[in-house]
């Protein structure tokens, strides 16, 4: 039996001996036994400490190590660390013990906090060199052991960019490490400046690689706001001989577009060098087109030309360049495409086509709403119009409005304003025809006949159509703004201009709007305030101070509110940079300015989940005297937390039980905003009780929030979606329900089926960058509490849930891919049936819908063939196109089949055909077929994906060739009503803009 000592008393006694050898012997042994005897040793710590402090004693470091260990066991980590530092080399970083692990963590924490403090106060770090040595030893060890992720994490935390670079370059898979690193820097680096430093470093490392990952570099550069770098890379890629490089360039452009940073994109575009022999065709056909088109007719003819979209442009280019160097010609051609993408036109057009062709909105829902809403109740009436607009956002389908012109005409004054503006939402992204579509309602120069409300609404609509892509329309809106004195028109024009020129910080536009502001008219001033903010989004310019000064000056609450929001918008994403302004606003006497301060907090820290911001907001949510401020403070939490939606329900859960209805309302919307489109179970559980709250406006908020959370979630994945739909129907049909909650229910039905059931609300792009437009859209949307027309801003947050594959020509080829999940999990909700009538009526409806569909299909096919016939003379790909139309029928059959064949066991996968609806939850099930003709340039499961053609010699079949606005097909029953126009549409490929309808009031 091995003997052990039962007490350290003997060794401790030996410490008191005079002979140093004895002391050393005692220390060495104590150090070995400290794990067992630390309680006994702890009483003698002073003796050991004195040994450490004894300069004469040559084993001071051993004493320090021993004391450090004892302090570690006593839980005094600070003392322990300082003695461990004294132990010098005896403190072994690689030892695998709790003591070493704990102390290392402590040391790194300490070092990181010192470094951060030093960096924040801009002073040279006063750091114990011994501490630094330990951290460096640790970092080196991690790198040596191949634990690069640890090393990266520590290096970032400790602000050791040199070590970070070392870790990245030494890792065995530099690409993976880099992407890990950029991810980490977005998720965990809270300070903006420092994040920029890290990203800057990443870009440098990226560039040094033999085969750089341009996709990631460009993402980083975008964050750093360096358009020059991006432009350089893009140019290099499209100058390359290889087609693959060009594809990559296009893919990069699409990825950049997704972040919706208009000013940045414009900058990139302008920095691409022109080809040496500039083709005669101007590069931006749209803008010239809109500028030149002064009357509607001219516009129409131009539109026909434009119908071919990029094709026309790309065809035009080679036509004019036979004389130039072929290299330059390819470059010019690619450049045109690239610019098309960067300006957003390509993506918008494709999205529009997708939304139009896949539109699955259910008119019956709207019909039910329309019928159940009381005639005289104008709030619900407008709500129905809003719901319709949202439901059809971006689909260009305005059948419902056309069918109910009489009913629509009941909208007067501001309701008329929003009815007209609703068209803008429906036609969102219809850049080419937007102007001509709205032409009948726009203010006519000379004849002052139109109602100012519809004119103002039309200007607002133009803004919505061109939101964030307003290059072409800006000029027109400015003219309209300056040529009117009617405040309603000014209101619409301001909003429109703000939307169109979102984030461009255009001085001239700003001055125009400022002039409107200084007229001190309440209605126009409010819009002007918001518009100024939209214009200056994220610039944090001096203008904010100017705006704040005017907000103090004016008497109109509406103007103050508009300005307050505007100021908040200017600090978007500035994080700490906005603190001074936020401080100023949140300490203001005026509750409306404080209210703006809440928004400033929300937007400056949007998506950062910054603890400081959350703390501040929670403080205001419980302590401010004004209900408005409290409500907004809670709501603002939603913006701060949208990057980590899992947290929001937990944080606001207590607030959602507050006695104050405003706070409950804010909590509901906060959840709605941050968890939008996630269908998160906790969020739904939190909102559920609020939808039957005692206070009407809380119900309203909860219903809207619930719809935002549940958008595009199918009943199969969460049964509560179905229950919610039924609840909405019940509220709408209930005669005794309060108007407020009824309005909420109507809007909720609109949001739930938004964009023809093909869009979701997304505040983060796939690369987890925030989408400015979407965030700004939701921020202004949440103002609808005061001003209903702002509801339309929600359409900015919609992003299509689609996977659209593109070939080199930026066309959509037909190809198949797999969704490895049950089709029912992500299918569209079934169309509603008329539940209130007897079943006898039900049956025919069901039959009717299919037959009508079939009929529509037949007529469309006919039309297609006709058009093919026409085309065949012009183009040579007759066979291909003919087949494609045949394919299309198969396609629609496939879409129908799962619904029809109920009895069969459900397959566990689904073949999708490009372009396809892929809801966010479905993305992880998407697989590309291995033997497919096309392979994606980067593996992404949604959005725009460029495809590499492996068999370029074979003919391609294109899908999505039907351009929008042939209203006939989707309208179902309406087909007959539109027969005339439909027929004429079928003849020429691009239809004329739909006829205008007039209000009869």
């Amino acid at each position: 039996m091995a003997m052990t000592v039962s007490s350290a008393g003997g060794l401790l006694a030996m410490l008191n001996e005079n002979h140093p050898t004895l002391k050393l012997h005692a220390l060495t042994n104590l150090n070995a036994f400290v794990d067992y005897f630390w309680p006994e040793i702890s009483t003698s710590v002073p003796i050991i400490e004195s040994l450490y402090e004894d300069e004469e004693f040559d084993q001071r470091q051993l004493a320090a190590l021993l004391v450090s260990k004892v302090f570690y066991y006593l839980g005094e980590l600070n003392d322990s660390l300082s003695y461990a530092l004294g132990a010098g080399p005896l403190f072994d970083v690689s030892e695998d013990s709790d003591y070493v692990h704990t102390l290392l963590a402590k040391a790194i924490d300490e070092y990181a906090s010192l470094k951060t403090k030093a960096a924040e106060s801009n002073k040279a770090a006063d750091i114990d060199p011994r501490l630094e040595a330990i951290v460096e030893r640790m970092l080196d060890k991690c790198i040596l052991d191949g634990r690069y992720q640890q090393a990266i994490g520590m290096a970032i935390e400790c602000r050791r960019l040199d070590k970070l670079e070392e870790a990245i370059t030494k890792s065995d898979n530099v690409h993976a490490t880099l992407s890990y690193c950029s991810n980490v820097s977005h998720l965990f680096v809270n300070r903006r400046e420092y994040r920029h430093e890290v990203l800057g470093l990443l870009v440098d490392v990226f560039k040094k690689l033999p085969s750089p990952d341009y996709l990631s570099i460009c993402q980083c550069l975008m964050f750093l706001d360096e358009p020059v770098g991006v432009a350089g890379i893009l140019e290099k890629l499209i100058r390359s001989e290889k087609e693959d490089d060009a594809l990559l360039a296009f893919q990069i452009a699409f990825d950049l577009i997704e972040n919706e940073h208009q000013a940045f994109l414009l900058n990139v575009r302008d920095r691409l060098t022109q080809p040496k022999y500039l083709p005669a065709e101007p590069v931006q056909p749209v803008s010239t087109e809109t500028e030149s088109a002064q009357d509607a007719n001219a516009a129409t003819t131009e539109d026909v030309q434009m119908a071919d979209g990029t094709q026309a442009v790309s065809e035009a280019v080679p036509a004019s360049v036979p004389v130039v160097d072929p290299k330059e010609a390819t470059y010019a051609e690619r450049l045109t495409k690239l610019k098309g993408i960067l300006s957003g036109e390509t993506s918008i057009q494709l999205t529009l086509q997708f939304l139009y062709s896949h539109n699955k909105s259910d008119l019956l829902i709207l019909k039910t709403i329309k019928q159940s809403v009381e005639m005289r109740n104008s709030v619900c009436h407008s709500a129905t119009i809003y719901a319709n607009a949202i439901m059809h956002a971006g689909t260009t389908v305005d059948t419902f409005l056309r069918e109910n012109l009489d009913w629509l005409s009941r909208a007067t004054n501001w309701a008329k304003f929003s009815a007209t503006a609703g068209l803008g939402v429906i036609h969102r992204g219809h850049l080419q025809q937007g102007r001509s579509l709205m032409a009948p309602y726009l203010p006519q120069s000379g004849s002052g006949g139109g109602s100012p409300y519809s004119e103002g609404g039309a200007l607002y609509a133009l803004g919505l159509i061109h939101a964030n892509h307003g290059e072409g329309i800006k000029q027109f809106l400015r003219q309209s703004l300056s040529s009117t004195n009617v405040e309603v028109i000014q209101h619409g024009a301001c909003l429109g201009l703000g939307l169109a020129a979102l984030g461009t910080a255009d001085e001239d536009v700003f001055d125009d709007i400022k002039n409107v502001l200084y007229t001190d008219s309440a209605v126009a001033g409010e819009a002007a305030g918001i518009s100024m903010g939209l214009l200056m989004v994220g610039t944090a310019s001096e203008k904010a101070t100017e705006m704040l000064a005017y907000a103090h000056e004016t008497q109109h609450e509406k103007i103050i509110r508009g300005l307050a929001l505007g100021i908040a918008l200017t600090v978007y994403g500035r994080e700490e940079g906005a603190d001074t302004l936020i401080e100023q606003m949140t300490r203001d006497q005026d509750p409306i300015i404080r209210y703006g301060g809440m928004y400033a907090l929300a937007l400056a820290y949007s998506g950062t989940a910054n603890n400081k911001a959350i703390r501040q907001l929670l403080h205001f949510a419980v302590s401010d005297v004004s209900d408005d401020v409290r409500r907004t403070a809670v709501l603002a939490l939603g913006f701060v937390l949208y990057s980590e939606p899992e947290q929001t329900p937990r944080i606001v859960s207590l607030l959602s039980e507050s006695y104050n209805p405003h706070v409950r309302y804010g909590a509901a919307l906060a959840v709605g905003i941050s968890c939008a489109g996630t269908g998160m179970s906790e969020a739904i559980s939190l909102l559920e009780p609020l939808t039957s709250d005692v206070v009407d406006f809380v119900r309203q908020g909860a219903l809207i929030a619930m719809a935002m959370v549940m958008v595009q979630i199918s009943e199969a994945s969460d049964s509560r979606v179905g229950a919610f739909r039924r609840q909405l129907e019940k509220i709408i049909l209930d005669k005794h329900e309060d108007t407020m909650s009824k309005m909420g229910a109507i809007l909720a039905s609109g949001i739930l089926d938004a964009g023809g059931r093909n869009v979701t609300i997304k505040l983060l792009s796939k690369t987890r960058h925030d989408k400015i437009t979407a965030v700004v859209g939701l921020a202004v949307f949440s103002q609808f509490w005061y001003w209903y027309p702002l509801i339309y801003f929600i359409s900015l947050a919609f992003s299509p849930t689609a996977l659209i594959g593109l070939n080199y020509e930026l066309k959509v080829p037909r190809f198949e891919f797999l969704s490895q999940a049950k089709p029912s999990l992500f299918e569209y909700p079934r169309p509603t049936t008329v539940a209130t009538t007897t079943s006898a009526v039900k049956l025919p409806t069901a039959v009717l819908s299919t037959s009508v569909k079939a009929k529509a299909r037949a007529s469309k096919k006919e039309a297609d063939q006709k058009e093919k016939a026409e085309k065949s003379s012009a183009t040579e790909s007759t066979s291909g196109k003919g087949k494609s139309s045949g394919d299309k029928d198969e396609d629609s059959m496939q879409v129908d089949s799962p619904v029809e064949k109920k009895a069969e066991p459900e397959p566990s996968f689904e073949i999708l055909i490009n372009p396809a609806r892929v809801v966010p939850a479905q993305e992880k099930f998407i697989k590309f077929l291995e033997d497919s003709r096309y392979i994606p340039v980067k593996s992404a499961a949604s959005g725009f994906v460029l495809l590499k053609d492996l068999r370029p010699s074979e003919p391609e079949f294109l899908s999505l060739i039907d351009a929008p606005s042939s209203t006939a097909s989707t309208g179902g029953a309406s087909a007959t009503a539109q027969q005339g126009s439909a027929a004429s549409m079928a003849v020429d490929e691009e239809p004329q803009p739909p006829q205008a309808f007039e209000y009869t009031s």
Partner: protein
Amino acid sequence: MDPKLSEVSQLCELFKAALVRNDFDKCATLLSQLKVLLTAFRSLPPLFEATPSAIHELTVARDIYEHAVILSVKTEDQDAFERDFFQLKPYYTDAGDRLPQSQQEFPILGLNLLRLLVQNRIAEFHTELELLSASALENPCINHAVELEQSFMEGAYNRVLTARQKVPHETYVYFMDLLAKTVRDEIAGCSEKAYDSLSINDARQMLMFSSDQELSGYINEEHPEWEIKNGHVIFQKAKESAPCKEIPSLQLITQTLSYARELERIV
């Protein structure tokens, strides 16, 4: 035989011889050398490695430390006693079952108990006592210390003082003398509490001094706060303990109210 061990054994003999001669300086140097030499043996505590000559080494080492303790008593050095005793202790507690029992074990343990009693470290005294087996308690050396402690606790100081006459071991005398002083301190402490003043005569008797000079010397040295006035020793009463702290009621009330207000605001 291991040369190192034989060296230690030789030195040990020298040391013991010097001890018998009461040549303390020689002892101290030898002892210091021995201790350093002992650190080289891996069979000794705390490592207890099972080397072939472990038993022998342990026995020698124990012997050395036992004599070191006796030396410290002879030199009347309490610190050294404590130091050496603690170094010796593992040989009794941890190695006890492998070595033949030492003759010196109980006297030394008893001495240690006595030392604790002298230093008035009663808690440690009892801890040590608990560690001893029941049979050990019957050993006269231990028993002596236990009885002393009991008398001491009861306040039967005369019994403590008379116990000096019947010490079980000659080394105990030194501590018994010291114990008398401890007893005097105890008495002084009690009188201070019990009386406001005492006549010098009574005080002298009580504190067991044979002359007034001794008494005043003691007072000057140990209790300078006492006063000798008019043939009386005046005990300066320990300063009146500060009056009970008042409860800060007003502050508590405002605090509680503000908590209530905050709570109201949160939900």
